């Protein structure tokens, strides 16, 4: 059962690592704007199809 010492310490170390990562991400401004990325991620596809359309039109 003494393994529990190690288990708890390990789990705490992992938890602290995640905590540090969280603080870092807040500091770097990742949560400053949570709306725009949700819209932005939908755009890339459209830009490509637009280009392809142009290309296919010029091929004709």
């Amino acid at each position: 059962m003494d393994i529990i010492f190690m288990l708890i310490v390990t789990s705490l170390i992992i938890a602290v690592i995640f905590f540090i990562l969280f603080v870092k991400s807040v500091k770097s401004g990742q949560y400053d704007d949570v709306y725009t990325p949700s819209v932005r991620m939908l755009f890339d596809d459209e830009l490509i199809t637009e280009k392809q359309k142009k290309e296919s039109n010029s091929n004709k």
Partner: protein
Amino acid sequence: MSKNPCYHCGTDCKSNPIEFDDKAFCCNGCKTVYEILNQNELSCYYDLESSPGSIPKEIQGKYDYLDNPDISNKITTFDDGSTTVVNLFIPSIHCSSCIWVLENLEKLNQGIKTTQVNFPKKELRITFKNEEISLRQVVELISSIGYEPYISLENSENASKVADKTIIYQIAIAGFAFGNIMMLSFPEYFEVDEFWLNRFKPFFRFLMFSFSVPVLVYAARDYFISAYLGLKKGLLNIDVPLSLGILVLFLRSSYEIFSNTGQGYFDSLAGLVFFLLLGKFFQKKTYSFLSFERDYKSYFPIAITRINKDQSHVTIVVNDIQKGDRILIRNEEIIPVDGILIKGNALIDYSFVTGESLPVIKRSGDKLYAGGKQTQGAIEMEALETVTQSYLTQLWSNDIFQKSNTRNIKTITDKISKHFTIIILLIAFLSGTYWYFHDLSTAFQVVSAVLIIACPCALAMSAPFALGNTLRIFGRHKFYLKNAGVIETMSKIDTLVFDKTGTITSNQHAEIVFEGEALDERETTCLKSLLRSSNHPLSRMLFDFLPGQTGEELPASFNEITGKGLEGKFNGLEFRIGSPGFLGIEVSENLSTYIFVKINGKVKGKFIFKNSYRENLKATFDSLYDYEKQILSGDNEGEKVYLSSLLPANSAIHFNQKPENKLFYIKKIQEAGKKVMMLGDGLNDAGALAQSDVGIAVSENINVFSPACDGILDASKFAQLPGFLKMSKKTMNIIVLSFIISLLYNTVGLYFAVTAQLSPVIAAILMPLSSISIVTFVTLSTNLVSKKILS
């Protein structure tokens, strides 16, 4: 007339759309934007949203000042000689198409490297190579596609505003510690004297102690500071019993584990701080796209063109304008100083200053006041004052703008906590004395238990959650408050003071009335087709107002005399319309704006332009029956009779009020013991808004500009005002009710404490239970009440 929306901006094209590429456009500007986007393979802008654009404005020469390195350095955030980064505030960002086109700017110009939109803040960050494109060209490029940035003195003065994220870290620490301590303390709650548990106990306890240290010194820091500051001023604010509770919790728990007499209350400690911080965070709702601190600086331009003696043009910062300087104001530019018009026809729009929707015509030699916007061609003027000394801007030298905003308002929580703290200390003392004589060892336990359990956690949370939630509800109804404290002040208001123009009148629509001999059908259509060729704002308004079609008959001759009127000939009809001076008519009184019409040398009559009052104004005023209502107007007495009919008899209505008069008037009635809410819109109300207990700016377009205030109300929701006021009162009632509930919890807890039965498990249950039930109660009840009142 069928609705014919512009393909670009969605405005009704009326009867004369510009056809291009099989699409209808309302104006050349919109067509140009479409062309630019289409040529650069960006036309899928129009696939994302229908008619997403906004009409681009005339910008010729407006941004020349950005070539001045002194000015551009103030605006850019980063510049290493080859790459420049700039953040621009663009009020017209409003939909996903906007994000898309602005983030594909590099397609329009190779010099632009990357662009990134922050939608909630309506901000665009542009990185560009300054060898290939200058800042001025970047700004002109985005303006040309309808996204004109808002560059003002304010940006240049405090470019770096770093948001305070401390509370997020504090919550993170408290939450992290709370979860972990809870996990470590649970075994001891349910198992006593079990073999393995006894073996791990010291280890567990040590970990709990280490977790609670950062909670005490970092997360709970602000409560100790606030309590200390309160005590120094002789105030027993809510933070005094809170920090006392937190401190006693920590000391007693540490004593227990180090003396090996118990497991301590560390989980309650971390939980308490965590919940308190959550409440604080919830209350701090901010509307990042609005600013409540603006003064004239954020509205005035940064730079202006000065004309030197040798007729050369120089761009100078507006603060450098000296008395006697000759300055050039271009179309759509704002006049930064008081001055005399020297050259050109001025048509000044003072809507941001006074709320007056109709532009004013000025001739050379007339005095121009700072804050107006030139709307027709370029003018030259001579400055009579410096920027800070102008009629409007000297308002800001008043003391009221120097004071920091933290007026010491005693909140309801602080009022209760004063009595609460005294009672708690008394109970602790009495029960301590009782146990001192019965059982000395329990006396210490009882006193600390009383201080722990009486820690007014639920009490401290009910107000932040109730106010924070109401703040959000108001926000959903387009009433944006600066902070939650405004709601409490609002509930105590007994006097409402309204500005007239732009506040209770709408500056979007003018009401037009014709006085004189009625025009027949042909005359009307001819007049309409004559007006079509004019771009004067009054002509546009009259054009929209006149019934019938145009186009059947075009004028044989047409002549527009800028600033005066129009002339035109039709078959058998000769029109002259415009100002009375132009038509040679003598006018006695000059209280309103009008256009005279003369046909074949005979005066037919005049079109009178009136500000239209907001819809249901009378009904809105009537439902505010238990408030004293007053009106302060900067205008003349032209509409006194109508205004008096809106208000109950003997209500105060004052006309010809200058900006300082308004401020002093508010001060005067405050000294008479009134709690005043001021509703205004323009810069001329700024003083009164700052002086009043609650200053609300009424705005037709919340993104554009509003003076410093406590709240911004979207003009379309003006009729909801009685509802908002009622809601603020109900919120305070809910808070009082939740105080009673939390006091019941405290009484139950005190019973355990005084009888020396407060075990850690009871504290661990009672504390979160009371907090969560209070939070649920206040949020549910505010939502319920708001549905009833505001729906």
